[in-house]
Every structure is written in C-alpha cells, then in structure tokens.
C-alpha cells in the first residue's frame, strides 16, 4: 500500500474503537463517585471531538436542535453558568437561564415545584447549582429530566473536576501516576471533593495541603473507609510541592477569617500562597491550575497566576468542551423518552 503523503496531512487511523456507545449508563451527572475509568475516558474522548468545534470560526453543530436545556442557579455564578450555556448553544440546544433571586423561587416556590414546572415546560436537561449539598440528588428523584450538578454546597462539582482532569490529560498526556497538589480551603471546596473521586478513579496521586482548620473533619477516616490510597494529606506546602506535576490552589474566601478558621489573612499568605519560589519546588514544568474565581495575591501570586506554567485559561476553554460532552452523553436515546 502506498503511504507517501507528507506528515502534516497524516491523520490517525491507527485505532478504531466501536462505533456506538454502550458503556454509558448515567442519566444524571451528580458526582464522580460512581464513574468508572472507562466512563471518564469516554467523556474525554467525546470532549476531544467537541474541542475541535471550538477551534472553528462558526462554533456550532446542530446536534441538540430542538432540545431545551435549563440553567437553574440558586447561587451566583458567572463562569460555570456561561460555560454551560455556551456549551448548550454550541450544540444548538435552546437554553433558558434562571436566576433564583429573580424568578418565582424568590416568591417561595419549592425546589421540587420549580423542577416540575421546568419539566412540564419541556426541559430535557436541567443544570443545577444549589447552596445545599445534595439538592441535585433530590431533584433527580423527582423529575424525569436529566440533572447535571453544577455545584451543590460543599459537596460536589463534577464538571469542574472533569475539566481539571481533562486539562491535565491534554497537557501531560496521562493521568495515572502523576502527582497533583490541591492547596487551601479543602473543607469548603466541592471542587476538591469531586477531584478526590475523579483522581482516585484515574489513579492520579492527589496531595491535599491545608492548615488543619481548613481540612474537612474526619478526612483521614474517609480516606481509610473508602480505601483511597492515592489521596494524601500534607499540611506543609513545601513538602507537598515536592515532585508535583500539577499545583492547584483553591480560592480562599475572605469570610473564613471572620469565622475564626484563620488567624489572619497575612499569615495564610505567608504560609500557603503559591508564589514563584514555592512553585520552583515542584517539577520544572509543573502545571498551575485554579478553579476560579481567583483572589490574586491571596492564594496565588499574580506572577504565578499569569506565568508560563499557568493553564488557568485553558481550563476555561476545556470546560466548554467537557460540558458539551456531558450534554451529548445525557441527552437523546430512547431510554430518555421512556
């Protein structure tokens, strides 16, 4: 057989996976605790195809034409909400964004009633953010619509963890046997919690680094109970950063100091801020990530946040591809019409 075309034109046709998806069984995306390695890989494979659409001049495909996707946000959010909305629009779905403070929820309608109304209006997917941990689980029990958890309380933020993993995978080519360090307010972080599940499943080594007051109570028992040998706790940032492939500081909410969890903000900055010097303790080309929004100068210095090792903006772009992938996977199919 002739293979004389130049390198730039060569396309990978080495592997030919099956043509349809039979391994997917999630109607809702609530957290990553019940995802298998194959399912996470599947989300990434679809996201790869979606990422190509994002490079086009016209970033739109007709895939979800006629589907309605509702963003139901009981908590303020710009980045996650815009990301879900753009993802839906890129797939040609119709979108409605509901801000709880400006809808009938403000008039006292209950969560379940709101969901039933949205279902009656013909919503195919409801993307939901709620300040109460577990609210999306309640929602999933009371509607036939697919629920995607866009963050519930301190509990879970699966699409963020997926985009974090996807970003690491696309930069470092793999996930297993990498060392990721998450620094900061683990206790209040749904991002950290979903990443604990996701990274455990993908065999990524995750070190949680925080002052004792910002670690969830009973974290060690939790790690033992669920047998998560890849999750480690290391309170000292310098030690935690050794040999790190990825460093992810979390946003420190200013209220934490008032609630007595931190002596002073200045002390936190001194002990835990990811600055240039500390970053140099990690591997030379370690990635710097952040789930946003960033408090520059608090948990991360400006020069690191905008430095050459930062892939924070990439995370935002990847977030759209991941959410397109999730929409693709949960919509359609006869099982949803049943």
């Amino acid at each position, binding site marked *: 057989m*002739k293979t004389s075309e*130049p390198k730039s*034109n060569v*396309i990978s*046709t080495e592997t030919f996976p099956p043509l349809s998806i039979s391994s997917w069984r999630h109607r809702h995306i609530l957290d990553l605790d019940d995802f298998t390695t194959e399912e996470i890989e599947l989300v990434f494979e679809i996201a790869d195809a979606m990422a190509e659409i994002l490079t086009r001049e*016209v970033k739109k495909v007709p*895939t979800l034409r006629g589907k309605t996707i509702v963003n139901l946000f009981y908590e303020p959010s710009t980045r996650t909400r815009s990301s879900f909305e753009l993802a839906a629009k890129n797939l040609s779905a119709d979108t409605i964004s509901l801000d709880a403070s400006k809808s009938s929820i403000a008039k006292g309608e209950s969560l379940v009633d709101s969901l039933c109304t949205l279902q009656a209006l013909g919503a195919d997917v409801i993307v939901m953010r709620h300040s109460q941990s577990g609210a999306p689980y309640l929602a999933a029990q009371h509607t036939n619509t697919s629920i995607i958890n866009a963050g519930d309380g301190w509990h879970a933020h699966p699409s963020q963890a997926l985009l974090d993993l996807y970003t690491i995978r696309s930069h470092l080519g793999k996930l297993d046997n990498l060392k990721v360090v998450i620094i900061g307010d683990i206790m209040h972080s749904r991002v950290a919690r979903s990443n604990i599940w996701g990274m455990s499943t993908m065999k990524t080594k995750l070190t949680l680094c925080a002052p004792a007051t910002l670690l969830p109570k009973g974290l060690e028992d939790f790690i033992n109970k669920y047998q998560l040998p890849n999750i480690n706790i290391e309170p000292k940032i310098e030690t935690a950063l050794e040999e790190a492939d990825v460093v992810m500081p979390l946003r420190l909410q200013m209220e934490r100091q008032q609630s007595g969890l931190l002596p002073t903000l200045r002390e936190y900055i001194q002990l835990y801020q990811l600055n240039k010097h500390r970053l140099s303790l990690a591997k030379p080309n370690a990635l710097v990530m952040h789930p946003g929004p960033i408090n520059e100068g608090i948990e991360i210095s400006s020069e690191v946040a905008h430095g050459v090792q930062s892939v924070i903006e990439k995370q935002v772009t990847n977030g759209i591809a991941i959410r397109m992938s999730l929409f693709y996977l949960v919509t*359609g199919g*006869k099982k949803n019409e049943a």
Partner: protein
Amino acid sequence: MPEKILMSPVDMERALVRIAHEIVERNKGAEHLVLVGMQTRGVPLAKRLAATIKGLEEISVPVGSLDISLYRDDLSSLELKPLLHRTNVPTDVTGKHVVLVDDVFYTGRSIRAAMDAIMDLGRPQTIQLAVLVDRGHRELPIRADYVGKNIPTSMSEEIKVQVMEVDGEDKVTILQSDREVPDENK
C-alpha cells in the same frame, strides 16, 4: 449467511486508481483539491487516493477526516449514541474543491450530514463525492461524482467493505439473509 466477494484487492486498487485519474481530470489538476474521508473507512480510502494523485501530479493533496455523528438526522431516535471521532480537516476549505470519500453510498443521509459539516468549516468552491461502492436506494436527491463500482442490491442485503488499514484486508463482500446472491454484473 451466504457471502459473496464482489471486489478483490486488485479490483479495489484499480477502481481507486481510476477514481484518482477522474478527480484530477475533472478538476484540471490537483492544486485546489482537499480530500475528506468519512469516518471510518473513508479515511484510509482518501489517503490512498491522495497517494495516487501524488504519483500523477506530484502534488500532496491535503487529506482530512470527518465525523458526521453530530450532524445525523436520527440522533434522538437512536438507542445508543454514536461514539465521536475528532474531525480533522488540516486546511481551510474555503475556495477549495472538496472531495468527500466514503466506502458505501446508500441512502445519501450520511452525505447530507457530511455536506452540512463541511459547510460549517468554510465555503468550498465545490463539494464532490467519491465512493467505492454505490448500492442504490437513495432517500435524498444526492448523487456521486466518482463511483468505484455500482452494485444493485436489495435492502435486505448487506454490503461490507473491508480495508487493509482497518480490517487487515481489502475486500468488498455482499451478505444476504435469505435470498439468492444476485449476479454481480446484473
């Protein structure tokens, strides 16, 4: 299930060489061509056409791959979602003569989807269609510009194209559930 070989490796090679010549003739050269293979088996066929054209014209025609799953008209009625492959068209198609390459031409629905997909990437001068096998039964007003072999079939029959790069061998066969295998030159 009775199986009958309709094209041997040599038959396939000859058909592809002829199609390559026809593409060059029709487009008066290979300068503004882009070959786009449809996943899965259209892609290696497009690469082979490009290799033959290179031998004829000494021009490396860009080869792309196209996944039409996102453009299918039956997505919401499918039991299982199709797996997506990354679309990769390595060049701007605007102003180019885009030749879509597929293995079997049947209802025309995939080609409709492929044309929409190509249009989303830019505004080509023309879109042409090259297929290894045309088995008839069109459901849309679409025709092929280059055909390797016309094979009249009944809808209960299955045409199976195998290519070296995917299946390990080059072969076109017809599978039939109950009826007699028709003569291939009918």
